[in-house]
């Protein structure tokens, strides 16, 4: 398998179609991140597409001194945050209404055109997780999404979020503590949710 840096080098020398390979490598993880943040697949897809396009357009500024994945995630996180700020005052409300709208559009069983990712993310569990994540401070929720949905190392999270390594770990740890507490509270307060 060719590594990302080599692919970028070849893209910069004119083999533009190799960018497809980078899309295949990272698209699902980015989608999972954005879907859990917005609860809307179409918003997530737009943001993912915008991130890839801007990485391609700015390809000459890429440098193998850093990982392509870290760069892509940094771009994507910035786009997500810009979108988040612009679109909503109440993240939790937005996530909930997006999921509610998706449920209202009657889909009796997974259609054959759905990817495994789409099917897996249409679970109640994922929806609940997205709602609880929306209640956390944004940096904690993003650190958790990067760790689990992005599959990133703590050093990569620190670079992407422009914070120290220990701050990245603390964000993940505190976020998990709050989430765990929320999940243990269980359905008691969920009556108020639905």
């Amino acid at each position, binding site marked *: 398998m060719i590594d990302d840096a080599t692919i970028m080098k070849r*893209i910069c020398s004119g083999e533009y179609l190799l960018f497809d390979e980078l899309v295949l490598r990272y698209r699902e993880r980015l989608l999972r991140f954005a879907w859990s943040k917005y609860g809307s697949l179409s918003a997530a897809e737009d943001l993912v597409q915008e991130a890839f*396009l801007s990485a391609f357009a700015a390809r000459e*500024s*890429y*440098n193998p001194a*850093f990982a392509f994945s870290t760069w892509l995630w940094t771009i994507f996180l910035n786009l997500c945050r810009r979108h988040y700020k612009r679109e909503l005052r109440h993240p939790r409300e937005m996530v909930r209404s997006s999921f509610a709208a998706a449920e209202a559009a009657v889909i009796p069983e997974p259609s054959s055109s759905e990817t495994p990712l789409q099917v*897996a993310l249409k679970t109640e569990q994922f929806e609940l997780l997205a709602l609880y994540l929306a209640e956390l401070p944004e940096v904690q929720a993003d650190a958790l999404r990067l760790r689990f949905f992005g599959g990133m190392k703590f050093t990569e999270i620190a670079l992407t979020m422009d914070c120290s390594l220990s701050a990245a*770990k603390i964000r993940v740890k505190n976020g998990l503590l709050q989430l765990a507490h929320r*999940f243990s509270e269980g359905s008691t307060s969920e009556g108020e949710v639905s």
Partner: protein
Amino acid sequence: MNCDEAFDLITHPTDHNCEELQWHLQLCPRCRQMKETLAPALDTFQQILDDVTDVDQLSQFHADFHQTSDQESASIFPKTGQPFLSAETVRMAEQAASRLRAESVTNQMTKPSQKPKPHQKRLVHAALILLVGFLMGWGISLNGPENQFSPSVSSLQSQQPCLWIAQRESRANQPAKTAREKGSASNVVLSCVACHLQSTAE
């Protein structure tokens, strides 16, 4: 393994059940307690990830994808003419690249090294003086015109075709064409940036 490394593994998306971690947990009540406390959250993440990364499903998806990618890739790859990209977004990507590059340089400089010998110290001092001089010069040059950053953004206004999409589509339409022909076809396709500028002007 120390407790810090154990935390890495406890929160690892895929290796959270590895033997190394199990050994540490058997010996370390603190980490065991931590893992138990976090379990409701960790289990949820890991269950969702297990659903998604089911190997059979994914490999099936990739097989399907490669079969259909020539005709039906619209949902995965952007198409020409969709106004998604702004010059501001590209500038954001370039700024991210320059920050990451600066940080990788800093990291390399601060990597632990052996204690410098006296003559090395003198060299370091000389380098520091040079660096200070350079930074002062830079500070002055910052007062100059603003436009030195991001050459490609400033050239965006003057049409930068999205060569990736153009090449994808020209291949999809005319699979037998030569590379030179593809190049000329891509010149005809408007860039995503140009589309965006056009659509905002309308």
